């Protein structure tokens, strides 16, 4: 449908350019996340010279929270890019979007500085102090209002836009259970997973699926109806397995025994959703008649679908059954799964979106640079290496500490050599990220777009011979 609007060209609506600033913030926060990752990696090697100033738990909270903030910033940027295009109108309030970005960053910086001063809640992944929680809520409400009004007043309401909005709305709602205070640790843990699990193995997959669907429509030229139909099937499988799959966090935290059965069965189905996602992306890319010139965006898109299956689906399944998890629960096996899952599913979808949007926003075809391609391979090979190092450490820890009953510290010290491998692989990943950021900077700032769109093909920045492709 509407073939002319689906073709690649310069960005069609002026307000889409706001996405650039969200993506730039992503690059900044991602870099900082890597710095803290190295502090953690070196500490695991036994080199904890920063212990007096940045002890492990500070670096860890900063590392994981920066990840969450940059991914959310990336989702917001993606939404500000996608929603005007899908709704065929300018953003409801571009000013609100800018205010929202600045305040989000201020809250993020305040939280991170707070962690270094022992100001936090001390609940894994939800360390943000309660006072700042409220600011996050206000900020996200402003974002949702902007997106909602744009869709509401838009010319069309596409499935992709609705799934994206539903995912974002549910993320906001599911943040609230994490803000309830409980005196009893078991209640606290129970509802903490409502946020953490139902985000990353539930509604975030909706956001990911919607962005994936948008990218596939743009990059492969397959009919929107076909892509969106399968989007429903995949997010259907996600919720079918993911909601009750929350049970895999309820095996050993004081919750009733039946969660071992419920969590085991349903989380064993979770890889199916990711397998579906990977097959969907690969099939659409093969079926698509159009060959995009932005090969790098397609590479990140397909890479995301495949790596999320490996990291989230396959490696998640590796320790999700209760009889396995009894031994692996609370070991570095979780770090193995967590790193590749977040990378494959969420970091890569944001990087795919950035790779797609930057040529459109700036009118420059920097994706042809060798840097763009090397960034993809260096980051992915680096992450595979890191996952391998965590796997070796995790498996050794399970057998030595849990199965044989060796002393914790003794085991950890024997793992230091593998932590060195981890840091080496992380260095390769960092090199790749540096290339990605250099490429991002080379694109420069977004170009001028006449207000009210559609700007049309006149602004297509690519040489005439490239434009013939579509």
């Amino acid at each position, binding site marked *: 449908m509407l073939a002319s609007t689906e073709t690649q060209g310069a960005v069609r609506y002026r307000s889409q350019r706001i996405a650039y600033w969200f993506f730039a913030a992503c690059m900044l926060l991602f870099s900082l996340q890597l710095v803290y990752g190295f502090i953690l990696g070196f500490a695991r090697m*036994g080199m*904890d010279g920063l*212990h007096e100033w940045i*002890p*492990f*738990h*500070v670096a*860890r*909270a900063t590392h994981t929270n920066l990840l969450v903030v940059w991914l959310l910033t990336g989702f917001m940027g993606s939404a500000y890019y996608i929603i005007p295009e899908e709704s065929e109108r300018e953003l409801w309030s571009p000013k609100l979007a800018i205010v929202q970005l600045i305040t989000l960053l201020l809250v993020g910086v305040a939280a991170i500085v707070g*962690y270094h001063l*022992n100001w*936090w*809640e*001390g609940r*894994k992944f939800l*360390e943000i102090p309660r006072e700042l929680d409220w600011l996050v809520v206000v900020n996200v409400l402003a974002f949702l209002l902007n997106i909602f009004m744009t869709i509401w007043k838009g010319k069309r309401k596409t*499935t992709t836009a609705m799934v994206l909005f539903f995912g974002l709305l549910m993320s906001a709602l599911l943040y609230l259970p994490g803000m309830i205070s409980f*005196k*009893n*640790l*078991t*209640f606290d*843990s*129970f509802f903490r997973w409502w946020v953490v699990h139902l985000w990353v193995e539930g509604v975030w997959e909706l956001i990911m699926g919607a962005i994936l669907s948008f990218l596939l429509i743009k990059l492969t030229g397959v009919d929107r*109806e076909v892509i969106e*139909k*399968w989007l*429903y*099937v995949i997010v*259907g*499988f996600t*919720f*079918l397995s993911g*909601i*009750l799959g*929350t049970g895999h966090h309820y*095996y*050993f*935290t*004081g*919750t*009733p*025994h039946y*969660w071992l059965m419920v969590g085991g069965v349903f989380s064993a189905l979770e890889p199916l959703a990711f397998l579906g996602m990977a097959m969907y992306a690969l099939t659409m890319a093969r079926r698509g008649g159009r060959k995009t010139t932005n090969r790098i965006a397609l590479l990140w898109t397909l890479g995301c679908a495949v790596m999320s299956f490996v990291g989230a689906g396959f490696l998640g399944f590796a320790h999700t059954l209760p009889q396995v998890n*009894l*031994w692996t629960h*609370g070991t*570095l096996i*979780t*770090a193995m799964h967590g790193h590749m899952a977040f990378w494959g599913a969420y970091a890569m979808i944001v990087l795919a979106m950035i790779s797609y949007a930057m040529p459109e926003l700036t009118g420059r075809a920097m994706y042809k640079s060798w840097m763009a391609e090397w960034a993809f391979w260096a980051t992915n090979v680096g992450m595979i290496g890191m996952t391998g190092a965590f796997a070796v450490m995790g498996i050794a820890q399970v057998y030595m500490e*849990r*199965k*044989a*009953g*060796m*002393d*914790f*510290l*003794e085991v950890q*010290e024997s793992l230091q050599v593998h932590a060195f491998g981890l840091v080496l692989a992380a260095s390769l990943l960092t090199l790749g990220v540096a290339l990605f950021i250099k490429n991002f900077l080379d694109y420069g700032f977004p170009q001028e777009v006449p207000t009210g769109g559609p700007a049309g093909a006149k602004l297509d920045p690519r040489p005439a011979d490239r434009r013939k492709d579509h």
Partner: protein
Amino acid sequence: MGLGNGAQRPFQLPQLPPLMLTKSAAKTFFLGGTALCGVAFVLLTMDTLAQLPSRSHQEAMTDQVVRGHHIWNKNNCMGCHTLLGEGGYYAPELTKVVERRGAPWIEAFLEDPEGFFPGRRKMVKYAIFDPSKVGAETAAANKADIIAFLDWVGKIDTNGFPAKPTMNQAGPQIPADAQRLEGAPPFFRSVCSGCHAVGGVGGNVGPALDGVSTRLDEVYLRRWIANPQALKPGTAMPKLAMDEATLDSIVTFLRTL
């Protein structure tokens, strides 16, 4: 005749209805599946919330336990440790720590974590447990709070987590003989046993002490316990604050082994 007629018309496969899933069917699958699983999840949640108070022995959750929980959260202890298997994987799992180490060991450890494991992985030395910073009374109360909290956690019904090790450790196995500990002074039972085993009972951080009197003489034992670092720099054995009488009682006990 009939055959001849048929030959003129090429054979055609019967037209099958399209097996393709329609978009609205896909949407129904998504909404229906989500609603169904959502309802099941809410029902299970309601049942779980009803069971959690008894499974976690909420009646034993004293003010002291709640204060300990507050200390735990306030200092982000799960940023390094795990509790019920949840946390940072950088420091030991603490679900059964009171059962494993005993309160006196934890009290001594919290006062000077690095002193217990010199030159090894570090833990922050928190002012709230340091008598010289907050006064002896407050430090003791804070320690009692966190220990009460950890003790309460250790009694939660966790469906068998953490599991007992199932693989035999290398080395000679000494049959458990709790009687050998009978003559041990209280300090030995509560602190030393955290790391050392006697008669197969106790920790495995340091060497088992069965037969130690045949290996080390009284003078050496006395000097060693009083200040391990002085005899063997870099040893994991901490210098523990104890009075002469306690030291005497420990050395006397070790001589019987």
